[in-house]
């Protein structure tokens, strides 16, 4: 599975010229997968997931500008920064359901407004964003994103087969019983939250490296959260290949019509969400599971 992913994304640039499109596709697979880790296994739906992505992008860029470390380490630093942000926002996990979703959205908006505030223009570039074009390296950043993609998929696979992931799913279904059989609910949720945040942070770092010039909107737009949510819901949450399929199919659709006709695309995915919730809460993969096919 992992080998297949690596092979596909190493091979595709040779047959398909638009490497930046492939790069963005990988970014969204990573984000959909990272969101799936949290939502699919704990039931917490973070609308502000993009906050970690932006946090990683900014931390990476600031490290490149001020620390002089190798870029790869800076990307790792971006991931760590997102984990730290996750720790700070950890108390949000005390909330349930919709409260959590909205509160995390509020948190990501706060991050965005702080980062893009003109008063901080000396540090974050304010509304003008950051430039790290001195380290611009499309191929190296492409491979970095591929590595992050492999890591995210491996994590999902681990969640899928390990006792830890099993415990998470038990917690999702019935927290009281789960805690009675000895699962430390709070710790397991927090760990998942931090892992999910770290994945988004790494993706943000690699993304910033690839773009090398970006505005705050580019890495904090709510649309990134929305895409990650829709892609993983479409494929099927709580599985390993669901988010990959969802992101693959829908992002291809998006790049075909969404860029030229964004409103029609918005209409289509809005309708898709409604239909998915009403008729297929398990995503397209549930079509297979209903017929008795075991889906990984």
């Amino acid at each position, binding site marked *: 599975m992992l080998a297949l992913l690596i092979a596909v994304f190493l091979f595709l640039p040779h047959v398909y010229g638009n490497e930046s499109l492939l790069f963005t596709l990988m970014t969204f697979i990573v984000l959909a997968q990272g969101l799936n880790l949290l939502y699919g296994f704990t*039931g917490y*739906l973070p609308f502000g997931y993009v906050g970690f992505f932006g946090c990683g992008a900014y931390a990476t860029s600031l490290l490149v500008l001020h620390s002089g470390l190798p870029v790869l380490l800076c990307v790792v630093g971006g991931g760590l920064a997102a984990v730290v942000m996750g720790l700070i926002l950890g*108390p*949000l996990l*005390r*909330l*349930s*359901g*919709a*409260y959590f*979703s*909205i*509160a995390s*959205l*509020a*948190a990501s*908006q*706060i991050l965005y*407004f*702080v980062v893009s*505030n*003109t*008063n901080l223009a000396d540090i974050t570039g304010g509304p003008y964003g950051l430039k790290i074009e001195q380290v611009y390296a499309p191929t190296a950043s492409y491979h970095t994103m591929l590595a992050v993609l492999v890591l995210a998929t491996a994590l999902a696979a681990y969640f899928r087969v390990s006792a830890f992931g099993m415990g998470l799913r038990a917690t999702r279904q019935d*927290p*009281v019983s789960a805690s009675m059989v000895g699962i430390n609910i709070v710790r397991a949720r927090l760990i998942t939250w931090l892992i999910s945040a770290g994945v988004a942070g790494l993706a943000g770092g690699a993304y910033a490296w690839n773009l090398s010039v970006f505005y705050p909107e580019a890495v904090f737009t*709510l649309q990134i959260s*929305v895409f990650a*949510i829709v892609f993983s*819901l479409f494929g099927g949450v709580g599985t390993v290949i669901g988010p990959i399929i969802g992101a693959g199919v829908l992002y291809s659709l998006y790049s075909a019509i969404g860029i030229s006709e964004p*409103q*029609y*695309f*918005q*209409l289509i*995915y*809005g*309708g*898709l*969400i*409604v239909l*998915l*919730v*009403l008729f297929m*809460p398990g995503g397209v993969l549930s079509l297979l599971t209903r017929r008795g096919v075991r889906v990984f």
Partner: protein
Amino acid sequence: MELLEYAIIGGILYGIYFSLIGIGLNLIFGVMRIINLAHGQFIVLGAYAAWLVSRHFGFNPLWGVPTVFVAAIVIGYPLYYAVVPRLQRSGDPEMLSFILFFGVGQMLEALTGLGFGADQRSLPSEALGSGNLGVFGQEFPDSWWWAAGVSIAAIVALWLYFTRTRLGYATRAIMASREEALATGINVNKVSALAFVAGLALAGIAGVFLPYLLGSVSPDLGDSLTTTSFAIVIIGSLGNPLGTIIGGLVFGLGTMLMQTYYSSWSNLVPYVLLLVIVLIRPTGLLGKAVRSV
């Protein structure tokens, strides 16, 4: 002192209006335990209705109020029966409705964009009186007073409905306990549908005044309006529509004070208020402790 007075009176007017912005979301949640994440988009739709009425047909934008009322009935009933009963039979209506109405909101936003274009639209400023009305020497545009006045009227009407009519009693019974309301023979579906339509109508009415309060309106305002409404509703306490007034006032005063003294940070107000309140008192300022694991 001048500035402070201006901020406080402005904050009260602004806050009363924002109570109306939030109250529809809260009514729907209180009665159906369903989160209308398309709330902001319905408000924007109301604003475009007022724009159509005034710019296209040349009437006073106040005619937008009855227009959105009719529109809420036309849109609300089919939407209610298409999705809500189905959602309430599912395992987790709160979370599923959250996602579903998010999809509805995206569709509405796309349709508004396709129908009216992405440009910002404003309403004729003289239509609601071009003067300023002063209190304690502080002057505010007439449209602000109109917005606050209509908001108070709408909230009073809702209060009268709750306390003076049989349907209002039934609505409150459902809010207190859905199962017991069912058991006493209340037609829960009918009453809920009415509350759903009323929630959309309140959002639409709020929308009519949006271009005046914000200066202009564009299709992409929906999401931030939804978040702001959420903040107001949670400050007041989720599920208690009249608590929303307190939420609105806290939000209005907070925003106005920030705009007066630290204007570059004022767009943080609703989000910071939301986070702080949710973490300290998840049930809102007036709420009872009802939170489970």
